[in-house]
């Protein structure tokens, strides 16, 4: 009886999209307003989906309090109300929401052992969202 549970979290952070591998003009062309030098912020909505058999002793895939505690400690405490460009995760990575999805997936996949991580989804604004289900190897 495999089921999938999705939990939604909110955090707010600022970022600037800028790649050192491109010229100033290329950065403006690629990133437009998102390249403004002082950065800007978003209220991000993060959805974490885990999957697995439902334990009939508890009726649960995993205990939600374990997932909440992990996400609070490892994700929200790390990213909420921060400038993403200043964090070690983005020292050499442009903090697009694509890359943020991959970074968060990696942290949850490596650290959360109570259930299998199926997918990370992030809404940057109400109008756009990004999903990362992990690499082929991870999904096996």
């Amino acid at each position, binding site marked *: 009886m495999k089921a999938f549970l999705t939990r*939604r979290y909110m955090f707010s952070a600022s970022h600037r999209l800028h790649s050192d591998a491109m010229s100033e003009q290329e950065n403006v062309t690629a990133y437009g307003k998102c390249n403004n030098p002082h950065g800007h912020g978003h209220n991000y909505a993060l959805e974490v989906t885990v999957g697995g058999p439902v334990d009939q002793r508890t*009726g649960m895939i995993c205990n939600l309090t374990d997932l909440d505690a992990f996400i609070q400690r490892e994700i929200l405490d790390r990213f909420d109300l921060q400038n993403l460009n200043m964090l070690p995760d983005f020292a050499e990575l442009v903090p697009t929401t694509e890359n943020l999805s991959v970074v968060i997936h990696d942290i949850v996949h490596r650290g959360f052992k109570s259930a299998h991580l199926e997918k990370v989804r992030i809404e940057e604004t109400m109008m756009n969202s990004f999903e990362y289900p992990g690499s082929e190897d991870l999904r096996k």
Partner: protein
Amino acid sequence: MVYLTRKAEFSASHYYHNPDFTPEENLRVFGKCANPNGHGHNYTLEVTVKGEVDPRSGFVVDLKQLKETMHREVLDVLDHRFLNKEVPEFLTRIPTTENLAIAIWQRLAPKLSAAQLHRVRVYETPDLFVDFYGEA
């Protein structure tokens, strides 16, 4: 193949308790949800069916029939009920959102003829939902 999703809402109360656990274990595993007097949610149910579009009607499924089936098989049974005490499945199973999604699937799947059930999604709150795609 086209997928169609119909939404519905119901309100119900529940609590989490495993009679095989000690009172301490129930409290440790289920926390506030173990309060035997129960608590309630406004649930949102999304039922997704799939099928080919009938060239005569342009429908995957007759929405009116789907709505009636959802009402008869699910909403009339769950809405404004204490799940642990009034819904047969939950006399023996814990009414978590996971088990609720499975129970709704088991109620609906055999009753849908025109289109095939693809997914049952149950929102317990806007920030928590469970998806069930059947046994496979």
